[in-house]
């Protein structure tokens, strides 16, 4: 029973509350973290090695100078090379994962600690049938009118009657635009900007920061219908133009599924009355030279299938913050002539049509890259 009992309890009491709490951090031990997957897709494959950090320092801390290799069930060894700090890459010319083959990861750290994974087998992939969007409105205590957006689902099917355990990696790519185009720029002299929409249209790709898992164990057949993915709402610019999802579906073994499913459950814990108690999620990496040392993460082997779909939002109701030109922005224009060279170039806009008063606005209003996107249109873009 997944009981949102708190809602009822608080309703009766009318006094419940959730407030920030400073977590103690006295028993922190730095642990090796491994992440990587060998698939049936062409390589190269990446193994990322990092270390854990204290909870008040949420940074990715790469771990370099390790010796990394993978062996298959026949004893063949495939070396990985560190081209980027903490990222170890295979040679695609010599190593490609095979369905039905099993693999084991070996790591030796500069300090001589030796780690290895369990054997992991690449299972036949399961086809992604469709990715579906559904218009949904949701309540939100911070939004008087509620929240509007798309709830995405995935359908998949496999002819096998065996239980299938899946993990999805969902990458969203969308086109968005700055609020204003650049009409002039100032570098000691005010000049017309050569291409006023240069920083106007961007494309942003990001991994959806959620864990999606599913197992057909406990259901009839291996069909998956309307498995919920993420919810994208109109409080960002993501749905303003084209929106694309690339769903990468990994069929993994039961242990790998459990690892990710347990991480997902822990991520969803809200301290509820009937929440499961949290616990340590241990992966499949062990230190063969020191049994008391723990390592985190999971080295997977997976049969992968992917599908990309494009979506358009036709319902309006956008609720993201936008820039407007105020008197202060117009007055700021006169100040650019007294600016220091260190502040150059300074971009100037003349409003949406380019015929209004000249104004200086904040960079994100005029340069779409400031929202994290890039100017280059992706090759797959429609």
């Amino acid at each position, binding site marked *: *029973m997944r*009981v949102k*009992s*708190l*809602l*009822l*309890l*608080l*309703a*009766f*009491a*009318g*006094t*419940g*509350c959730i407030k*920030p*709490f*400073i*977590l*103690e951090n006295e*028993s*922190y*031990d*730095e*642990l090796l973290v491994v*992440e990587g997957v060998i698939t049936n897709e062409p390589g190269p494959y990446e193994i990322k090695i*990092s270390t*854990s*950090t*204290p*909870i008040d*320092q*949420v940074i990715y801390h790469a771990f370099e100078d390790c010796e990394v290799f993978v062996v298959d069930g026949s004893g063949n060894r495939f070396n990985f090379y560190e081209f980027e700090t903490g990222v170890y890459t295979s040679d695609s010319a010599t190593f490609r994962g095979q369905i039905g083959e099993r693999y084991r990861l070996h790591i030796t750290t500069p300090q001589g600690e030796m780690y290895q994974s369990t054997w992991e087998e690449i299972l036949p992939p399961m086809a992604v049938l469709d990715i579906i969007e559904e218009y949904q409105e949701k*309540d*939100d*205590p911070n939004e008087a009118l509620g929240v509007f957006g798309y709830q995405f689902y995935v359908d998949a099917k496999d002819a096998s009657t065996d239980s299938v355990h899946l993990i999805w*990696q969902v990458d969203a790519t969308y086109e968005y635009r700055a609020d204003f185009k650049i009409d002039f720029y100032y570098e000691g002299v005010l000049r017309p900007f050569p291409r006023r929409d240069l920083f106007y249209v961007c494309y942003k790709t990001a*991994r959806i*920061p959620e*864990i999606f898992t599913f197992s057909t164990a*406990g*259901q009839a*057949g291996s*069909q*998956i219908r309307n*498995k919920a993915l993420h919810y994208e709402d109109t409080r960002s610019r993501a749905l303003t133009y084209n929106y694309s999802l690339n769903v990468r579906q990994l069929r993994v073994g039961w242990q790998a599924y459990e690892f990710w499913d*347990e*991480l997902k459950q822990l*991520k969803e814990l*809200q*301290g509820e*009355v*009937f*929440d*499961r*108690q949290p*616990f*340590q*999620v241990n992966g499949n990496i062990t230190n063969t030279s020191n049994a008391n040392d723990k390592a985190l*993460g999971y080295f997977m082997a997976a049969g992968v299938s992917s599908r990309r779909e494009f979506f358009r939002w036709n319902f309006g109701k956008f609720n993201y913050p936008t820039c407007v030109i105020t008197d202060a922005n117009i007055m700021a224009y006169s100040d650019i002539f007294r600016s220091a060279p260190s502040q150059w170039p300074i971009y100037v806009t003349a409003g949406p049509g380019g015929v209004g008063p000249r104004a200086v606005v904040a960079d994100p209003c005029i340069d779409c890259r400031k929202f994290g996107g890039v100017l280059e249109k992706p090759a797959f873009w429609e």
Partner: protein
Amino acid sequence: MRISTAFYIMLVLMLSANAIKAQISTRVPDSLNGKTLDDLAKWTEEFGRMPLYYHPNLGKLSIQVESDDSLGSILHRLIREENLHLHEDPRAFLYLSTTAFARQLPSDLFIPKNDAEGKEDEARSGYLGTISLRGGPVVIAGTKQSGAYVKDVTIHGKVRDGATSAPIFGATIRVNELGIGASSDADGRYSLTLPQGKYSLTIRTLEMDPMDVTLIAHSDDQIDFEMSGKVVGLREVIVSADARSNVERPDMGIEKLSVSTVNEIPRMMGEPDIVKAALLLPGVQSVAEGTGQLNVRGAPSDQNIFYLDEIPVYNTTHLMGFFSAFTPNALNDVSIYKSSLPSKYGGRLSSVFDIGTSPGNKDQFKLKGGISPITADLQVEGPALNNKLTYMSAVRSTYSSWVLNLIDAPGINGSNGAFQDAILRFKYDVDDKNSISTTGYFSRDEVQLNGLSDFAYENRGASVKWNRSIRYKHTFSLSAAMSNYAFREENVQTQARHFQSNYQIRHIEGRAELVLRPFTQHTVHVGLNSIRYDLNLGGISPLNAESLIKPIDFGAEQALESGIYLEETWTVNPRITLKGGARLNLYQYLGPNSTFVYTDPHNRSASSISDTLDFAKNDVIMGSVDPDIRISGKYSLNELTSIKASVSRAHQYVNVLSNTVTVAPSARWKLADQNIQPMMGWHYSIGLFKNIREVAEASIELYYKEVEQLVDFKDGANLVFSPFPEMEVLQGDLTAFGVEFMLRKSLGKLSGWFNYTFARSFVQVEGINDGVTYPSNFDKPHSVNLAMHYQHTTRMSFSMNLVYASGRPITYPTAVFYQSEFPLTYFSSRNEFRIPDYMRCDIGMSLEGSLKAKKKFHGTWHFSVYNLFGRDNPFSVFAVPEDGVINGYQLSIFGSPIPSIAYQFKLGNYAR
């Protein structure tokens, strides 16, 4: 023979020299002609139990019996010829005296003996002749004639509330000269065997004035005691049967709460809650606020059992733990056994909560009820069938649906929660030796959580019990009880995976017990009981045609748990009392069923299944014969101080499957089988008990307990969907120890109690936490409770609670690591940290209506503020990755003061 504090008044008013009633018209046989008065007295006693009292000097008087002479004629002739006086009292006792009888009370009748010495006047000496009074009322058991050849005398009867005639459970009758005593059972019955002689008895009980009685014990007899209520201001906030019995009885770890005590405690949302009030007692904890489970001396809540008039109740909570599932007005009291459980209770390691319902009023129809912010309740009781039958019925229901509909908040709209409960009890006194009582119980919860799930759960139970008194000395009881707990859920949380699940446990129990009092200082309990468990483990099935859920049938389990027991209490001398018991348990896990055999019984998983065994109906899949022991003793250092020690060993064959902080209503129970072994526990305790000038008592108890084969969940266990729970749990050891200090004051305008408990509780299971010992969820080293009640006036009283407890252990996030490009939290060892300490202050005020005795309607207002200072005690602490950082949050159930008003009413004005 019936005695009350008004005995003398009644007696004197009704004495009359000419009050020879119809029974005295009985014909006397001619064979008594020429015999002595002694012979006549012997005959009168044998015929119709009409004792005849006279001075021994008169015994040799000769009597003349003529043809068809009546007893009255003979006695009149005797009076006339010998110049005697004859009187009959309301009990039809006859008194012959050479002097006139008193027609009013002696002025110094209630003066203690020392003060009255030398003042015995003619009225007194003439009143009872051979009886010299000593303080309280005099009661005569039997007659001299019938006791001529006996050595030991057994008196028996009932202890009742004088105002309501309700039997009083737990009253103690102490023979001050011998240092022995007896206590009354749930029907108010007691039995006491002692040598012939004259004794002073003290009867003490919950909420009543102590009663001193002089007993002249000639021969076996029935004596009922009617206790009068304490004067207002002294009657409330008493948690044990009485202070002195706490010092004198050999048992340890027994607490008692009466419903009137609970009524005076500040209330949460206006609801008096007898079970949650137990949290104010030492050694009783809860994992967190707002939950229904109690943890007694560091043990899981499934090691407690709740009996309501013999009905076992498997879910004692409403609304997932907010309230207790017992109709408040229907209850009388709860006795909590924390250690040295009586031998008649098997099957639980930690505690027994024995909840008694109100027996019903024997005298007249009564009605009372109450209204709180979320519930209303009503109770009726009264006599029928010429007062041989008493009935009591109480119902309670919420109007929480209406309350929730008023709340306009996301997540609440469309949600609902409601509950009802009811108790019905009948008691039929067949004759003065036999009685039959029956109780029915029902509770139900229905909860709708918008967009998530709808679920309901309910208890249904019934019991019937026959009590028989054997020669007014021994008692025999035969009872049967049935309890059924069922849970059902419809879950719509995940699209295309809508499912419904259900679960049910049925407990049918039969019990026979014989209580023997063969000698003055020995009481023996011997009995047997048998429990049949039928668990429908339920299953998962698709809720609609669109659901892809595959039906899963978790199957069924059944078992038989039987036990025979023998327990003796031996009062060696006034200083030493020993109690020893032995219980032999026979457990049989029965077919039909299919079970797995694992290659590694300690690491059960799908991959380690080596065989599947099928069993037919009633095949014994697993059997176990396990002896239990109970030993306790008391040594009195003096009249007010004693030390006690106890050791007990018990077995438990059923446990709840849960990996949540508090046990959810959906949690399934699981029987011990060939893979999950029965739990076994030892409990040792020693204590010092002291009374302080009869107004207060203090005690300190140390305990140490061990549980083997404790069931705990594996990391990440899925106990909801797994059809094979043995794969989700492991078994290990629990060790708990602690010391409990209690100080309570029962008398005076200011009464209440204070207690401090130091307690630890640890678990060690191979396969969990790398095999390293970890604190249990309910390991709270320090707890302090202060409960006070101040009777300001006869109509107005105030109360206050102060509660402190160490924070419970919790598993914290300790590190961050990255997978799939986003940060995740890594958690500490199990229960490595603690949430902040818990503190709370509650206040309450009760305002009675007019105390006029003759009124048609009486009401009482209860004003309470729960969590007066609005301290946001954390229920839990959790971490959420947000915008690239891990933020910690604490959840509080009651983060601000909760004021409430409740109103209780009754027709007429009476004590309860």
